[in-house]
């Protein structure tokens, strides 16, 4: 690894890879950016402090190896052998890796045991402790795992396998004890000489049909123990080794941070996933001095992400629910953003705000999850109408719509487009269209604006809102769609 920088890879929720690729370039001056499904590889000289600030990624790893996919055959033993030769190296290799990792973190010598010549074999005492806390750890790991699973929706989720991975792991350690005893090695009592590790494997595609993550993790772990003499520690390993195997590549890395990047220490109670909230805010083009509104702010996640990243703007959040507003208030205080974000109790259908006073309106539209779909279709035009009203010309609207609403959206906008201006069945829509097509502030001319629809990746125009992109993102179990609109004047000029 070059003295001046490193090569990393960062996992991303499906759909967020382009945002992450853009972010590493902008925030870290990253080069050699390589984007694949679920991951972005990049090189940078940035310090861990800067790396920690990445907002659209899930977990960040130091890249150790990246190879072509493991050749897959029916012969499990052969495949495992291939995997092991990918990962297993001389102990010196790992010591170098660890010292690089430690340098990155500026760690001192708290566990300065790594450079010992004779790393100790398994220690019985720590294992018992491990077995006892195995249950505890599994809860923790499952928690992390489900986040990771959400993140990598494109790959097969391995939560159940992970659990038994742990089981297998502990068993394998116990069984290894005897061989080491019989070989004449005795556990060295000296705490300092121990070094602990943990292997985490994720696989999908062809290789997952032959082997499970659990089998691979176990095989690699045992081999590493034999090779380097380390002990496995599920609770608090010094070193975690991650192996990702799929049809695109074989990747080995070590995580830079214990917690996923998506865990924000400044958010007390998360609503929307922080990575998606940040991605939405990044689309809104928030410039210095901007007025930004989230008219259905819930716990305020979008506003928090936006205000943290773009503090030179003013933010307002509105919601009809007292409990949500309370939660948002706590979040804002926890994040220290009271100077930036103000809250209102108000309805998005009747915003107590002047027309054309905001530069950006960003919102996660919560419908489609709680309410019946038929009701949503009626509400959406009203909501869009108010959002459009308070937005200044040239401003942007960024919305997150569930899959169901995404389907409705076409219906709503096509509906407005196909019917003649005066004959729209839904009364609300009629007013919407009339107002939205204002020319010079008068509602007199209902122009052909509706018929002039801009069809761009399933988006059609809504009044003076022109579509400016749709992005499909994974929310874990379901998908959602980020819609961006820009308000233009009816004459078509910006």
């Amino acid at each position, binding site marked *: 690894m070059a003295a001046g920088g490193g090569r990393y890879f960062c996992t991303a929720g499906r759909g967020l890879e382009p945002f992450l690729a853009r972010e590493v370039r902008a925030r870290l001056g990253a080069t050699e950016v390589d984007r694949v499904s679920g991951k972005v590889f990049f090189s940078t000289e940035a310090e861990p402090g800067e790396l920690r600030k990445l907002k659209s990624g899930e977990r960040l790893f130091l890249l150790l190896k990246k190879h072509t996919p493991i050749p897959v055959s029916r012969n499990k033993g052969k495949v495992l052998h291939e995997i092991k030769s990918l990962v297993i190296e001389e102990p010196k290799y790992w010591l170098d890796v660890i010292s690089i990792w430690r340098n990155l973190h500026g760690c001192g010598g708290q566990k300065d045991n790594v450079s010992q010549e004779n790393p100790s074999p398994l220690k019985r005492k720590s294992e018992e402790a491990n077995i006892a806390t195995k249950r505890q750890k599994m809860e923790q790991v499952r928690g992390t795992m489900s986040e990771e699973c959400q993140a990598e929706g494109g790959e097969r989720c391995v939560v159940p396998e992970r659990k038994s991975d742990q089981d297998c792991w502990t068993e394998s350690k116990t069984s290894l004890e005897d061989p080491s005893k019989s070989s004449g090695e005795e556990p060295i009592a000296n705490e300092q000489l121990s070094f602990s590790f943990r292997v985490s494997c994720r696989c999908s595609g062809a290789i997952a049909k032959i082997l499970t993550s659990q089998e691979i993790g176990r095989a690699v772990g045992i081999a590493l123990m034999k090779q380097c003499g380390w002990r496995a520690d599920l609770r608090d390993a010094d070193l975690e080794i991650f192996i990702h195997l799929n049809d695109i590549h074989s990747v080995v890395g070590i995580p830079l941070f214990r917690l996923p990047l998506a865990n924000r220490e400044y958010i007390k109670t998360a609503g929307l996933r922080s990575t998606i909230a940040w991605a939405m805010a990044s689309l809104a083009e928030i410039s*210095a*001095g901007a*007025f930004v509104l989230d008219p259905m702010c819930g716990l305020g996640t979008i506003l928090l992400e936006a205000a943290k990243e773009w503090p*030179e703007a*003013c933010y*307002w959040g509105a919601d*009809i629910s007292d409990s949500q*507003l309370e939660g948002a*208030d706590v979040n804002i205080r926890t994040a220290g953003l*009271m*100077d930036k974000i*103000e*809250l*209102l*109790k*108000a*309805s998005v*259908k*009747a*915003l*107590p*705000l*002047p027309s054309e*006073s905001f530069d950006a309106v960003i919102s996660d539209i919560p419908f489609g999850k709680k309410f019946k779909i038929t009701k949503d279709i009626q509400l959406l035009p009203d909501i869009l109408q108010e959002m459009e009203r308070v937005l200044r010309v040239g401003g942007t609207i960024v919305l997150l719509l569930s899959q169901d609403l995404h389907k409705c959206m076409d219906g709503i906008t096509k509906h407005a487009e196909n019917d003649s201006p005066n004959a729209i069945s839904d009364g609300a829509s009629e007013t919407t269209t009339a107002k939205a097509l204002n020319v010079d502030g008068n509602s007199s001319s209902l122009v052909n604006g509706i018929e002039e629809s801009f069809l761009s990746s399933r988006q059609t125009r809504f009044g003076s809102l022109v579509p400016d992109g749709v992005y499909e993102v994974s929310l874990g179990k379901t998908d959602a769609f980020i819609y961006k609109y820009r308000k233009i004047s009816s004459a078509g000029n910006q």
Partner: protein
Amino acid sequence: MKLLTHNLLSSHVRGLRPGGGFPLQIQASEVRVRPVPFNAAFVARLVPRLRWAALLEAAESLGHPSELPPEPAADYEGDESFLRRVHHILLEVEVLEGVLQCPDSGRRFPISRGIPNMLLSEEEA
């Protein structure tokens, strides 16, 4: 509720004459002053977006006369003491408890724990 927010808030009770819902009259029972770091460029950007008369009126009604001129001077951007006074009245004075009253309809909107409740009932909207 800061006065910056108050400068935007208007009543949307149905049937108001145009502009009749602004500015809302403040009756504050609890006001707090909290320091906020001053950023001259940031405040200068806010000035052109403000409804100036409403701001002065609001400041007076809170018992925080702003010592601000009836209109921003032409060279306000370079006038730091002016910007500091704007900064103070706009961002450092908060109404924690009180009422906002619609000038036309008389409808009262409560402010509780700094958050104004602007929800209208079905009939009013």
